[in-house]
């Protein structure tokens, strides 16, 4: 409401965050899990006095350093870029609350990167003990970045006591903090194992390649054993209202009782299960037959599993950015009654300025659409209004919008997944007018102010 809306045609702003976040999560989880992998594997090489493993680690650590320091760090910055462009109000809330936590994470991140460079550039230059110490320090520092960022990530879904106290630690150590931390660590070990399969599949020494393939497969074991238990722990701390939407589903988010959330959950479980089984029958039982192509296939499956799991986590939080505090369209929950009574468009700085530029009802309706709907919907692309509205005429749309304005869940079945619509009756009518033009041919959808 306060800021101009960045219109991302067809895709919608949400996917800009989504695509970057999925890639970043996959790389950053590797950065953390890979740290543990380097430390433990180097410990193994040291214990066994096996130079071949040392040689392998030198190659692997170069791949590791480049991938994490270039793509991992840059996609991390990209998330900042994306969230600030797509949801400046929500980003400002997070930053105002957690500036110092982020600043603290930065300290660990800076130490982590400095360590990875010293670690890599000191191969064969310092004693083996000292090098092993560097690997362990890297592992510790990278886990610390997770320990901090996990508090901010989980805060958004379960802000806990913060809602009442606004005390940062209440938000940080929230109900899903620990299950999420453990879950992410398990996922990180698995991802580290999968990435290491890629580098070890290139080894020339057949014995070592078999040994490493089997060894890397074992990194998937923790999630196989503890994953379901931790997932249950996590889910039992998630707001129960969101859990019911997973399985009951609602009309708009899927077909009947099989919601998009449930489908994503099943996809994530199927992909994760496939990876684990595949790891057992592939590199673990038949390490000799393990090839580079199979390793790449693992990585692709891993990306799919990460993508669907992160997508599900985002869906779980709907319709909020910070649960029970601010909605995905940037409207604070406590402002809803006031906005409905006094009007929406004139309550925000840029929504008001854009409305003033509008010449007619349709254009004002388009401004309503930008601010209240476009954080999740597009006119003709992803979650398109054209498709969702179908053949409804203006009156039917208006009737539907008045239902969306209800804040009683008995009267508005969409409340579990969509913010309530806010605004006075005229504003809803303008929105209905605009939406009814979307299905008409030859109507220019883009709001054109003076």
């Amino acid at each position: 409401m306060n800021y101009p809306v960045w219109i991302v045609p067809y895709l919608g702003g949400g996917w800009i965050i989504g695509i970057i976040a999925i890639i970043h999560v996959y790389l950053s989880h590797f950065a953390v899990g890979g740290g543990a992998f380097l430390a433990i594997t180097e410990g193994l090489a040291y214990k066994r006095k096996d130079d071949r493993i040392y040689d392998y680690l030198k190659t692997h650590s170069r791949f590791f350093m480049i991938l994490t320091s270039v793509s991992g760090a840059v996609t991390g910055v990209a998330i900042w870029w994306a969230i600030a462009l797509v949801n400046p109000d929500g980003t400002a809330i997070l930053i105002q609350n957690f500036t110092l936590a982020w600043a603290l994470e930065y300290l660990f991140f800076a130490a982590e990167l400095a360590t990875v460079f010293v670690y890599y550039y000191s191969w064969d230059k310092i004693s083996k003990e000292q090098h092993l110490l560097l690997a362990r320090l890297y592992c510790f520092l990278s886990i610390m970045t997770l320990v901090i960022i996990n508090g901010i990530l989980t805060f958004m879904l379960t802000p806990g006591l913060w809602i009442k106290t606004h005390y940062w630690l209440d938000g940080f150590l929230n109900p899903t903090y620990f299950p999420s931390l453990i879950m992410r660590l398990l996922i990180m070990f698995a991802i580290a194992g999968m990435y290491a399969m890629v580098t070890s599949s290139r080894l020339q020494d057949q014995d070592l390649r078999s040994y490493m393939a089997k060894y890397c497969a074992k990194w998937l074991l923790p999630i196989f054993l503890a994953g379901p238990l931790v997932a249950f722990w996590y889910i039992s701390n998630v707001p129960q209202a969101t859990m019911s939407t997973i399985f009951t589903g609602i009309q708009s988010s899927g077909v009947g009782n099989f919601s998009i959330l449930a489908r994503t959950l099943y996809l994530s479980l199927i992909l994760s299960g496939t990876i684990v089984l595949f790891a057992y029958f592939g590199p673990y039982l038949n390490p000799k037959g393990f090839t580079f192509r199979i390793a790449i296939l693992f990585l692709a499956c891993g990306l799919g599993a990460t993508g669907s799991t992160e997508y599900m986590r985002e869906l779980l939080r709907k319709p909020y950015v910070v649960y029970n505090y601010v909605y995905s369209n940037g409207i604070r929950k406590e402002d809803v009654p006031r906005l409905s009574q006094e009007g929406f468009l004139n309550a925000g700085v840029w929504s008001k300025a854009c409305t003033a530029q509008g010449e007619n009802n349709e254009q004002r309706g388009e401004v309503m659409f930008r601010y209240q709907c476009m954080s999740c919907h597009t006119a003709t692309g992803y979650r398109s209004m054209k498709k969702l509205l179908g053949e409804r005429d203006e009156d039917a749309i208006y009737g539907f919008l008045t239902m969306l304005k209800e804040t009683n869940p008995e009267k508005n079945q969409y409340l579990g997944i969509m913010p309530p619509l806010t605004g006075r009756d005229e504003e809803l009518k303008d929105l209905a007018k605009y939406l009814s033009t979307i299905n008409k041919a030859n109507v220019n959808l883009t709001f054109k102010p003076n």
Partner: protein
Amino acid sequence: MDPHSLIPHYQALPFPAPLWLLQTLLILGFFLHAIPMNFMLGGTFLAAIFLAKGLKDKSSYEYRIGRGLVKGLPIYTSVAITQGIVPLLFVQLIYGPMFYTSSVLIAVPWFAIIFILLVAYFLLYWVVYKASPAASEDGSKYPKAKFGPLILLVSVAMMAVIGFIFSNNMTLMLHPEKWMALYQHSSSGLNLNTADPQVPPRYLHMVIGALAVAGLLVGMYGLYWNKKDNDYSAWLIKRGSAIYIFYTLLQIPVGLWFMYSLGHDTMHKFMGADTLATGVFGVSMVLMVASLAGTIFAAFKGSAAAFTSGMTAGILCVLAMIVNRHQLRHFMVSPFIQPESVQVSTQWDLLIVFVLSAVALIAYLVWLGKTIYKAHNPANKPPLQLGEQSQSAV
């Protein structure tokens, strides 16, 4: 349209620490970002020139420093990116209403920075591993070495584009009167702030500054080689000083143009109307003269001591200029937002943890620095070339 009606509100939450501390961290964070960023941008350009000059004779000093710079570039880039987090975080906190808005208005080029940076960064690694063999290595194993300078120039051109987009956003956030017209032009963020007369001099000021600081970087390599290879060290100090002097002299007309582009009222804040701003500006000018004096002496004599004093003054001059830059921003946004008016509720517990961790980080980085220095300069062995040291790992 009245620009005051376009200024978003701060969130209804307090700042987590006193404003002076947040501003100090913003300035310090930007300083620690600007130096490696200058190494990265200016260093990539100088590396391309040195490598191109020395391509035919790998034992030449030109090739040696070109290669030395190339080896460092991924690290400078990584540090620049990591250090960039700090000013980004605090500028969003303190000046968010202006910064978020201008970012959305130029969303497409602003977001493109990420992809341009990724490619520019990967190109640096490409040159490190594929196009910069050590003098002792068999050149035929590096058939693409001749493309090294060209690839570096492509990379530096991409970095220059990033800088240009940054200059656009950093000026647009100061000019809300331009916002609505840009949003009307494209609400998908296909805009730039190129019509702003401040952009060209401000951008040039930054780029030329980066080249000057990269000259200091070349001299710093000279300090590293001091007493290990005195001829090479003196050559580096002379060459680095000359580069610094050249770009700093070039900076004078550009700086004046930049000052002039600010407009009468703002310019006068730095020329007497505001005591603190004028004082800092005066200090920066004294430091610039001191840095020139030191580097001019070093350029002729190759003296490490003269270079060190010139370099120190030059880097402090950058810091003073960064304080001025911050003051300029504060002057320009103060008619529109007042960060002073935001309530403060200091998160003491977290602040203490942060400060203690920061002290621990500094100590840790010193230890890491010593570790890597000792690793590459063993007491009982003659020192190797900087580039050759990591050869076994490469």
